[in-house]
């Protein structure tokens, strides 16, 4: 076991973790932050995407012991003071959710994109969420939601 210090959604945690625990398992099982989903658990679906120090990463392929002193954002950290994040509002407005399993992942991918590129094109959006598989929406509604949240006309 090794002790790590993590900041998750602004809260600091001191945790004892095994070398073989992934960040995904720590978030879900130790911190009860089950918004981050376990899909393929092998880096192929993007459902477990979280932001680490501003970049989108796959928490199922990240060893928790390597996350000491890192800053993590999960879907639970998007809502501020009871107000949904613009990406969450936009996802609802555009019906970009059906089963909802991929939703936390693509929203975090989109958040990382918008922090880097506040006015993305549709191609930028497509590249940013290419690693987030969705079997329900066909992606168009997700792209529209992200473009709308960025203040862009979703027909662009």
């Amino acid at each position, binding site marked *: 076991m090794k002790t790590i210090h993590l900041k998750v959604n602004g809260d600091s945690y001191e945790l004892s973790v095994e070398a*073989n625990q992934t960040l995904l398992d720590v978030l879900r099982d130790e911190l009860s932050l089950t918004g981050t989903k376990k899909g393929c658990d092998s880096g192929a679906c993007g459902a477990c995407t979280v932001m680490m120090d501003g970049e989108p*990463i*796959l928490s199922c*392929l990240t060893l928790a012991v*390597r996350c000491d002193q890192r800053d993590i954002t999960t879907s639970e950290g998007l809502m501020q003071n009871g107000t949904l994040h613009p990406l969450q509002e936009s996802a609802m407005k555009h019906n970009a959710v059906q089963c909802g399993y991929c939703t936390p992942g693509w929203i975090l991918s989109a958040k990382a994109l918008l922090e880097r590129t506040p006015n993305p094109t549709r191609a930028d959006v497509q590249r*940013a969420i290419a690693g987030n598989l969705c079997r329900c929406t066909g992606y168009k509604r997700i792209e529209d939601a992200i473009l709308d949240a960025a203040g862009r006309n979703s027909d662009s």
Partner: protein
Amino acid sequence: MKLPKFELADPVSLAECCRLLSEKGESVQLIAGGTDLLPAMKNRAKQPKMLVDLGRVPDLNTTSYSETQGLKAGAMVTLSRFAGDPIVKQKYPLLFQAALAMGDAQLQAMGTIGGNLCQDCCCLYYDRPPMLRQNLDPCYKLGGEVCHAVKGSKTCWATYCGDLAPALLAMKARIKISGFRQEKIMPLKELFSGDGKKPHKLLPDQVVTEVLVPPPAPRSGGAYLKMRVRGSIDYPLLGVAVFLILGSNGRFFDNIAAALTGVDVSPVLIDGAEWLAEGGDSQEIVKKLAETAYKKARPINNTFGYSPKYRREMVKIYVKSAVRQALAMAEKQGGAT
């Protein structure tokens, strides 16, 4: 699936890292980004007793450039940081394209240059959960004595699928390798062993620590084209990098090279230098490049997606398309790539 149990060492110096690798031998694995290693561990294809983390070793996380020496990139630079470097984008567009062709935004943020070069070979009979392997005898790559992809083969045919290697090979990149007792700089092409089971020639204590790319010649251009089923995540079913330098003194090209990935146990380099000395017009040279690439490509039926025959037929087309794009880049800029 949970990872098997292992011990993690996080050395803070390269010497300590190489010493650990040297002492522990076969039971230890180096971990950089982890995007290639951890899925194999989850599948129980690899079960090292110890992982040595390269993440805290200093000075492996930077890039630098000089007009005379060219580009120097540390092995732990992530693909997203590499592609986001203004020098890479402006002066090395071929490398920029190849870095962004790898996986998706998440994998690019995690995967490293060194890890991408040293990624293991792929085969659908190997890269699968134990449950789906249980009715198959262990293949060469799993320590057995059979190849399910090429029946009757005496060796492993797992395919090299890195995206950066062909681009770097076409640009005549070199790598720095550090070991417990010495370090050396060698051409990248010498890294690859030609054996799908153990695709790299690294000794147990050796680590790829730097990639060195010559400064881009004036009037040069490059392109990387990747065939895959989906526009994300997938490994290349065929990847073609072309790098060329427009000629002087009446020659059309001063140099032209193509490199392939996804079609053999190692990346395949086709260097046009010898034909250029023989002369010939540009169309003949490009035709010879495409035909040689076609002859050298050996795709096999060990992946999902298109058939080996189709992938091999597409080699010529991809080489010619990449040459066209590289030519357009070289002619448009008229100077630096």
